[in-house]
């Protein structure tokens, strides 16, 4: 059974999505300007993995939306 998400968990998820987003952009910068083929290949693969991470985190939020309380809990 899935429990409601805590505020702390949501903060970690939000920070993590920012981290993943920054990684995607940094990897894209290396792919665009780099000269070492091995590094460029790795970074373009890493972009896909970071996108999967981002989607998983986003999915966790949407999964918990229905069971989240609409009023503050005591």
């Amino acid at each position, binding site marked *: 059974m899935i429990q409601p*998400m*805590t505020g702390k*968990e949501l903060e*970690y998820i939000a920070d993590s999505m920012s*981290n993943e987003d920054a990684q995607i952009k940094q990897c894209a910068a290396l792919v665009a*300007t780099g000269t*070492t083929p091995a*590094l460029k290949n790795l970074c373009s693969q*890493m972009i896909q993995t970071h996108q999967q991470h981002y989607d998983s985190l986003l999915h966790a939020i949407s999964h918990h939306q229905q069971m989240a309380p609409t009023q503050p809990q005591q």
Partner: protein
Amino acid sequence: MYQQQQKQFVLTEEDLAGGILSDLKRIVREYATAATESTCPDIRQLFTKLTDSTLALQGQMFQAMQQANMYNTSSPVLRQELDKQAKQYQQMKQKTNQFLQQTLGGQQNQTFYTPQMQQSNQQQGNQPYYM
């Protein structure tokens, strides 16, 4: 004249790779912390998987940078330093085992350190992982 004074600040490939690597190291730690502080089992599992996946990315990035000569590993530790630490921590282990026998009347022996070449010799039970 004016145009000559303009400077372009462009990060080198090595700068970019170094930034990505250090961020990956930080993100691994943040995912591990998030896993330990999660209450929902599914969220904990998500952060655990993300820790593993990011740790793998960091390892790949490190290897690629090392192969491109962008990373200097620290120099090998001297034999006498290894001898000193091994002796010191062997003594600590003996003392702790004595403490365990006095308090619990038994002892358990396991190690998590197993270099790959010796893993195939591993046996079940109370054997140390490093033989």
